[in-house]
């Protein structure tokens, strides 16, 4: 999560670390020295909320009775795409040439800010202190050090964690000021355990955020998909994402959501309150004043961008560099299910049935194209609309050639 205006940045790091907390550590290059007051531990619920608000959504429409003319309602469901973030394997060690610029405990985390004369010393120091760096990390560490970056190292203080009573790892927040609007991803690609997955939520003032050194591509959206997608929206979305990544040769960052935080339509979750935004690091929102019980105003002057990238060393040789554009147009990943009218009809609805069958066939092809799933399998799963609720007879030529 990146909050940025001018050169001020607040980064919130959450990850999907599953193992024992004692094995957890974060090693992140940062462009400036980070002092105690610049670090905070956030509430995971904030990120979950933002994730839900920006998640791709499935919208459902019901066909009206073809024999009457009125509109029916709309419902919606949202998919919670699991969050994953490149968790740089970390570990520790000691050697000369390493300067501990700061050391403090924030919440359940012990934090060190390190700089070093040379990468070998730093890597050796980290290793000796029990941090595991991926094999081949040294040249990357060297590159960051020579760019005058520090290393922000955090690991869980088990005593503090027990005292505070948290069982899950909470996200770490760091506030700093630097012209560099970037996200270091190179440490995550060195050991090449397949591709890494990263979601970036950017909160800015003027407009959409995009990468300057890679293409930022809008995911296909606003398409009609077959009804059964509802049961497996998560799978559908992952397949769609994989397929689109392939299509871009694994070299693109995808835009999943871009919206003014003041509203949404349709909303996958309520917009975040001003208080929540502030706790996420949106520093230009004034702190809530006034008496108790005052309703926090809806977020304003905040534009959210959600980016999703699957990266590896070949497609993403260097770190993600961002810039803020003036584009305030809205975008969301939105997929539409249209329910046919399956109840009895009181008139000759054959024209309606034919049009629905045509639509279902079109949806099948769209789905195959979006996800790379087999067209035949998709057709199997579609309940083609037919007379009296029976699956319609497919035209005899449908399966002739494909």
């Amino acid at each position, binding site marked *: 999560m990146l909050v940025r205006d001018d050169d001020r940045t607040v980064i919130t790091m959450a990850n999907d670390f599953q193992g024992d907390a004692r094995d957890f550590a974060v090693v992140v290059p940062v462009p400036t020295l980070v002092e105690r007051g610049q670090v905070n531990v956030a509430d995971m619920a904030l990120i979950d909320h933002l994730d839900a608000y920006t998640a791709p959504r499935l919208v459902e429409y019901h066909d009206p009775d073809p024999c009457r003319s009125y509109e029916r309602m709309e419902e919606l469901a949202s998919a919670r795409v699991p969050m994953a973030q490149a968790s740089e394997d970390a570990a520790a060690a000691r050697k000369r040439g390493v300067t501990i610029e700061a050391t403090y405990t924030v919440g359940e985390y012990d934090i060190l800010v390190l700089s070093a004369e040379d990468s070998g010393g730093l890597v050796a120091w980290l290793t000796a202190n029990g941090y595991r760096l991926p094999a081949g990390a040294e040249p990357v560490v060297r590159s960051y050090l*020579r760019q005058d970056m520090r290393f922000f190292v955090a690991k869980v203080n088990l005593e503090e964690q027990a005292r505070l009573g948290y069982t899950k790892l909470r996200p770490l927040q760091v506030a700093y000021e630097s012209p560099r609007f970037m996200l270091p991803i190179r440490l995550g690609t060195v050991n090449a355990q397949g591709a890494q997955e990263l979601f970036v939520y950017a909160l800015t003032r003027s407009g959409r955020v995009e990468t300057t050194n890679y293409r930022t591509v809008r995911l296909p959206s606003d398409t009609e998909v077959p009804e059964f997608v509802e049961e497996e929206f998560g799978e559908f979305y992952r397949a769609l994402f994989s397929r689109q990544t392939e299509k871009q040769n694994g070299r693109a960052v995808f835009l999943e959501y871009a919206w003014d935080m003041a509203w949404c339509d349709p909303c996958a979750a309520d917009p975040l309150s001003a208080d929540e935004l502030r706790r996420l690091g949106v520093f230009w929102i004034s702190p809530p004043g006034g008496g108790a019980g005052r309703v926090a105003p809806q977020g304003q002057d905040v534009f959210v961008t959600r980016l999703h990238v699957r990266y590896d060393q070949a497609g993403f040789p260097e770190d993600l560099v961002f810039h803020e554009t003036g584009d305030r147009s809205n975008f969301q990943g939105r997929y539409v299910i249209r329910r046919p009218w399956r109840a009895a009809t009181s008139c000759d609805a054959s024209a309606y049935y034919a049009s629905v069958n045509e639509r279902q066939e079109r949806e099948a092809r769209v789905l195959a194209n979006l996800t790379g799933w087999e067209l035949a399998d998709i057709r199997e799963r579609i309940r083609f609309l037919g007379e009296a609720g029976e699956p319609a007879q497919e035209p005899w030529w449908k399966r002739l050639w494909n």
Partner: protein
Amino acid sequence: MQTPALDPRHFQIAVLAILAAFGAAGLGIDIRPLHLVVVAAVALGTQYLAGRLAGLARFDPLSALVTTLSLTILLRTDGPGLAALAALLAIGSKFLLRVRGKHLFNPANFAIVTLMLASDGAWISTGQWGSAALGALALSGLGWLVLTRARRAETTVAFLATFAALLTARALLLGDPLAIVFHHLSNGALLIFAFFMISDPKTTPDAAAGRLLFGAIVAGLAFAIQFLAYRPYGPLLALYACAPLTPLLDCLLGGARYRWVASSLFKFTRQEKSDATHATRGLGRNDAVPVRHRAGLLRLLRRPRGHRAVQPGLAGRAGPR
């Protein structure tokens, strides 16, 4: 009013139009038809009116069209109003910001950077052209075609060579893989800049040596902006900042003023003597420069295959085209 059959700008317009179409259709770049129409209308209108006011003999739409396409390809705005303003600034700058009879800024560059600095609603999307090796090759090829027609390749060559050298030096210093260097050099936006913007013969120095120097300086500044100050849009900002160097280099080095003329493919004129005369005349303002020698060097560099790039009959009139 007759436009020469194969003005290099014809190639440039064709190539830029292909790029714009490919960007919109193939890369999903947000090129809005309304903006294109607005920019074209304002650019051509400004060119016509300003040309009348400046007393130009004829209305030449080619440069306005090149500017239109450059703005369409590179500049993104959140509304047609800013797009129109960009066109007005671009063409207006040609007529108003002039030094020694030459306009100072590349029109599209001036408009893009001025708007970007002044407004949140204008930006450029440097990553959107991708960095695929094949695309980079095709782009370079098309760019080269235009450059060789215009016979002013030195700026581009110097810019790209210097930028590549600096990137390589950085990678070696940091111990980074060369993949990062290639990633930057195959960036579509960088190549569009190098082949279609900095190459502009009307706003680069008249002498070949001046162009080499100019390209190298722009590259150095672009590199510093991007990799030392960590700011985006290095090349565009660098060209904007370096524009005042052009009259300075012209003053120091002289050289023949560029004219948009038909390609020698169809116009075989052989008047080398007057070419030299023309070059000499251009240098006359600076007595310290060894005139004959430079003119000879210039002719050598600018006349590959013995074709002529300069039409002497028109050489005295240097107006914005």
